[in-house]
């Protein structure tokens, strides 16, 4: 399309509206984020008196020191990292193991298996029956309760299956079979090397899900030592259960008050940074996941 065509008046007004809308959307989304970062790097008393509105006022790392001194936060961080790494590994393995047979033509009865997976999207036992099951098998208050019961997300199984169907042709399997390759080896030697992008897509989705979630921990964990970061955040940010004296030994009450506020902003930054820093580089995988998912399987 030639670019230099002069637009008619209605079209020019229209384009102005488009750009205005985009700018507005961008501003509305980014302002709160900028404010949080600026506030977290400001001297606490300036935040308290409302001097900070866009950029940091009197740059200070004071609250970050307090955050990293807090044992609870550190343990939550460590736990979340563990849940995310172990949980993602388990979830990805199980998802591939479900999706690979389901994608194969020769897998007799695959509609029945698919039905079993799909039905769980429509109907479930619910909170208490699941809770009782975990209690009966002794999983309550173990780390496994966070990473195993909800390890399989059916929509990601569907995405992986669709990917295999589109990218691993049945002919490839037939050729491999003639060469004496069985299903195990076919999965490991042929399918997995072809599946880099889809593994990335599902791993990232699981990782974000686990890192940001708190529901399972709220229900299944009672031991503080096992709490993931989100539960700790809830205690500090929303229930205000933090004793400021444990994180600093400040004299002036004004600074103490300010610190209680700025600490929250720094905590938000520290908790969200891992994902927000990484996602621009991995954005295409997320987008890919959404797009494969939107193709009717």
């Amino acid at each position: 399309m030639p670019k230099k065509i002069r637009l008619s008046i209605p079209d020019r007004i229209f384009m102005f509206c488009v750009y205005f809308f985009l700018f507005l959307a961008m501003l509305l989304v980014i302002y709160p984020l900028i404010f949080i970062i600026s506030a977290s790097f400001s001297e606490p008393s300036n935040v308290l008196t409302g001097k900070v509105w866009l950029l940091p006022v009197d740059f200070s790392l004071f609250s970050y020191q307090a955050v990293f001194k807090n044992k609870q936060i550190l343990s939550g961080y460590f736990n979340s990292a563990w849940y995310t790494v172990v949980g993602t590994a388990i979830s990805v393995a199980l998802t591939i193991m479900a999706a690979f047979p389901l994608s194969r033509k020769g897998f007799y009865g695959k509609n029945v298996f698919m039905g079993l997976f799909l039905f769980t999207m429509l109907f479930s036992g619910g909170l208490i029956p699941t809770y009782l099951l975990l209690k009966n098998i002794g999983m309550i208050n173990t780390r496994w309760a966070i990473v195993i019961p909800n390890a399989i997300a059916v929509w990601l199984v569907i995405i992986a299956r669709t990917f295999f169907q589109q990218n691993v042709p049945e002919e490839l399997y037939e050729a491999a079979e003639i060469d004496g390759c069985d299903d195990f080896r076919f999965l490991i030697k042929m399918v997995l090397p072809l599946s880099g992008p889809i593994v990335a897509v599902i791993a990232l989705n699981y990782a974000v899900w686990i890192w940001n979630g708190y529901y399972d921990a709220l229900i299944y964990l009672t031991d503080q030592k096992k709490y993931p970061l989100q539960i700790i955040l809830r205690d500090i940010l929303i229930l205000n259960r933090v004793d400021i004296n444990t994180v600093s030994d400040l004299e002036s009450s004004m600074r103490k008050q300010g610190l209680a506020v700025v600490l929250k902003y720094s905590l938000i930054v520290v908790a969200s940074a891992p994902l927000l820093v990484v996602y621009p580089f991995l954005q295409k995988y997320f987008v890919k996941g959404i797009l494969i998912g939107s193709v009717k399987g």
Partner: protein
Amino acid sequence: MSKATLPLAVHPVPAIRPMNSLKKKILRHWQLYVIMMFPLFCLILFKYVPMIGLQIAFKTYRVRAGIWNSPFVGWKHFIRFFESPSTMDIIWNTVSLSLYSIAASFPLAILLAIALNEAQHQRLKKMVQLITYAPYFISTVVLVSMLNQFLDPRIGVLSMMMQQFGIDTRNIMGNPDLFRHLYVWSGIWQSTGYSAIIYLAALTGISHELTEAAVIDGCTRIKRIWHVDLPGIRPSVVTLLVLNMGYVMSVGFEKVFLMQSPSILNVSEVMSTYIYRIGLQNSDYSYSTAIGLVNSIINLILILTVNQIARKTGEQALW
């Protein structure tokens, strides 16, 4: 099938008898079944075994007796639920929150996708996408605490701005009239960029010939969007709408639970939080399970109905 082309030596299956064909089909790919065993075991243990536990909705659960031996009470818990004065409020809270959320977020996501699709400036387009997508990665806990911080009457940056315009900001988070708006609009802030991706993909899939024909026929951009773009993304919109309508009763627990406070409980109690409160906070297992079962069944009926309607009206249904 290509079975005939395969050399027999690879499959030392003895004499071919029609009776054994099922066994043969399974044996030929026995390894696939072994692979499937692990996820299937998880699925059955953690999703299907709890369904057996649903029977405690018809019993009065006692820890000692367990699921099977607790005394049977029939419909008692269901009757109690439907006779309870707060039930209608909770159902209304759930449905209205869902519908408000769908009604407000769908048009905005489509609008953003259309604006992105129209923008000629590639750099700007990329940047807007990247930024509007970012809040999707923020956790619910952080999102709700941002609301709390920004709307804090003393130190909140938003409430300070509102005070400049003479708005009373003393009790925004605790105001029952504002809960739904805060819930929905913070959700829009968080997920519009994410939702727009799918529509943008659908928009880029619209054939250029249609667009060009419209331009040649003298369509203004607005008209083109109305007559070419919107019909073009209609299947995606309907599919997503069906999905969302089907989940009207399952408003997410996480965000509502975090936003709840005693002063706004009458508008913010939804099914999922009520089930949690009855079940795990009051330890009334059977009653909670009964409510959960009602909720699951309504959900199931809803999604089947909506899907059926979509299919009958010639739209793209889920199945």
